[in-house]
């Protein structure tokens, strides 16, 4: 394999990333790349990373993995072998991360990622992979808790609640499902629908017909940006009445903006929100990050972008603490991270996942994403149950 020392050209340290610029994840892949780029720009504007008394600029080499795992793995090989990259940023999605992690692990290349949340990533004994985000099982747990809470408030036993699940059949959503399943078990609820959506699906009519028939109390859906749009749109088209609809990725899918009334009352799981009061020395408050991002890329930063920026910040922090680009030293520094960022606190456990940061849950209210849980951050009150279509 390539050069023995980390790739530093002049005063620039080079990182590598395979991201999905084309293919089914390309929306979020673009978010990821934008997140990295904003971080790079900001750090470089602020003078760069100070390592061993010298300031270094940062540069990231990108490749397009086309949203396919096999390509992702090959590109990781290429980044490491041909481009001599020694520090990797993660790709978008759990599936791609799963494909790339064995490669970085094999070469002992540290990778900090912000978009692979499947828990299976953290059971492989990987020592060089670190994730700044909450694991995917966390995404909809808050929603399940809310449902139970609300049931109790209305004097109902949470055990009577019926849950309908529709999850895309990919590593990420399957882990979201596992999280929901665990909570369902814990809370004693009943599963009435358990559909797995194939990745290329364009129509959910069959599942939603079933939902109409069995009248669940909660409908949970996860399928990246497309799944979110499809679910919200078709629930409205088919006039499916459910008291609670919880979805992942609806902010990056811009459901509130594009689907208008149809999106109203939907609950959205998010890793991060601009209204949170996290703060760091690079961007300041979350809100300030959001503004810089908007100015640069002309859209609202979804959490996928924030996560990605945060992953870069972890590297920056680790370089500075390690005081060198020695791979092992940097790895150790990353492992010892205890950092507050605009995105939230970052602290890794032995398996490499961030245990310090909670998830948030939005509800679309009046066309805006309002944080409704956890209570600590709540900006609005949850509206529950969702009024039936006949009353809207």
């Amino acid at each position, binding site marked *: *394999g*390539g050069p023995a020392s980390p790739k530093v050209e002049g005063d620039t340290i080079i990182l590598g990333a395979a991201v999905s*610029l*084309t293919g089914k994840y390309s929306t979020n892949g673009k978010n990821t790349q934008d997140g990295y780029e904003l971080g790079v720009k900001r750090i470089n504007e602020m003078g760069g990373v100070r390592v061993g008394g010298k300031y270094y600029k940062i540069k990231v080499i*990108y*490749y*397009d993995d*086309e949203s*396919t*795992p*096999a*390509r992702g*793995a*090959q*590109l990781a*090989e*290429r980044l490491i*072998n*041909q481009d001599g990259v020694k520090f990797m940023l993660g790709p978008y999605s759990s*599936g791609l991360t*799963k*494909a790339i*992690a*064995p*490669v970085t*692990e*094999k*070469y002992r290349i540290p990778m900090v990622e912000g978009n692979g949340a*499947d*828990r*299976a990533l953290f*059971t*492989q*004994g990987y*020592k060089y992979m670190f994730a700044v985000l909450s694991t995917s099982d966390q995404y909809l747990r808050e929603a399940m808790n809310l449902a139970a809470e609300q049931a109790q408030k209305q004097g109902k036993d949470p055990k009577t609640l019926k849950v309908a699940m529709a999850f*895309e*059949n*990919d*590593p990420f*959503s*399957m*882990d979201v499902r596992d999280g929901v399943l665990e909570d369902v078990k814990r809370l004693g609820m009943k599963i009435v629908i358990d559909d*797995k959506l*194939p*990745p290329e699906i364009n129509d959910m009519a069959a599942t939603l017909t079933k939902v109409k028939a069995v009248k669940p109390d909660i409908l949970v859906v996860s399928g990246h940006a497309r799944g979110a749009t499809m679910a919200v749109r078709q629930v409205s088209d088919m006039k499916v009445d459910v008291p609670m609809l919880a979805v992942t990725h609806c902010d990056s899918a811009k459901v509130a903006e594009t689907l208008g009334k149809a999106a109203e009352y939907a609950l959205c799981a998010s890793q991060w929100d601009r209204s949170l009061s996290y703060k760091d020395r690079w961007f300041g408050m979350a809100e300030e990050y959001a503004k810089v991002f908007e100015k640069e890329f002309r859209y609202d930063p979804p959490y996928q972008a924030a996560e990605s920026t945060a992953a870069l910040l972890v590297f920056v922090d680790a370089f500075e603490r390690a005081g060198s680009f020695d791979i092992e030293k940097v790895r150790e520094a990353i492992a010892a991270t205890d950092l507050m960022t605009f995105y939230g606190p970052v602290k890794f456990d032995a*398996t490499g996942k961030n245990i310090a940061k909670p998830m948030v849950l939005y509800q679309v209210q009046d066309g805006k994403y309002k944080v409704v849980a956890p209570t600590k951050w709540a900006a609005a009150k949850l509206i529950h149950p969702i009024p039936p279509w006949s009353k809207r």
Partner: protein
Amino acid sequence: MTDTTRNVLLYALIGLTGLLAPSLAPAFRIQMALLWMMILFALTWDLGGGQMGYNSFGNVLFFGIGCYAPAVVQRELFFAVEGQPQATGDLATISPAFNYFNGFALGLTLAVIIAVAVAAGLGSGILGLRGQYFAICTLGVGVAAGEIASGWDYIGAGSGMVAPIFPGHPSQAALFFYYLFFVLAVICFFTLKRLYASRFGLAINAIRDDEDKAEAMGVHTTRYKAIAWCVSAFFLALAGGAFGHLNNFIDREVAFPGITFGVWMVLMAILGGKGTLWGPVIGATIFHVTQELFWTYLLGWQRVALGVLIVVIVVFFPLGIMGWLREQWPEKFGETVDLEARAAPVSLGEGR
């Protein structure tokens, strides 16, 4: 004699390049390994699609079986890493080389057995179909297999599964897989070369040109078709097994890549000139190299460039490169008319 010497020289040159390549360009080992895989893809597709006229869109089925089988064997016999949350620890110590290679070899054997059995089983049903019916059926089988794999928990369902990491330095792994693919492709090439030179080759060509006529002439069409299909399955399963272990991560998309590898097989064979032995080899090489270049230099636009390239090539070389060459210099391909020559007098009934 000169022809043979030229051929021997050519083979020697290619063989030598193949053998030395990994040392000449160590950073490109994986890409070169995949080049051999692409060649193998194109060759096996061409066996059915080009030589026999049975255009399959479902050959990824065998590749997928090949991907999964060794990984499952590894997991069941030696490495309890995948999908078991309790099995953590240092990968280096739980992947002893002996187990790894044993499991791999066993897995490849199993993959081949399953793939060939599936080919034979399916073949008896769908090889009776002709033309587009065959094509759509193979497509259906390929898609269905992918969907089933992604619903089957034993092989990780939608979450996929992880093959054990190669025991040893990554550069050794690259070397190992390089030579594995190299040898596979070479064996595949010579097997097909031999097959095409035999009655088998004539028979599948006849099936391609006019199956009704072949039947009417009493050719055992079903038997030949089944064999061709099984030979494809055999090599694809091996390629799949190697690729699964090279890639480490296996899920539906890796194992049943219908719209990438599945289509590329066809593309490469046609690009080089289907129905010829060298066409797929040339097509695969050109395709793979340009694709890698596009990836490197045309970030984000690489697929557009690829699409344009395909269109341009098809428009200007509709018969593929070999076909084009053949049209330009038919005499070099043995298409000669010798007006002077005469055959020896025939003795009927002595022919065989």
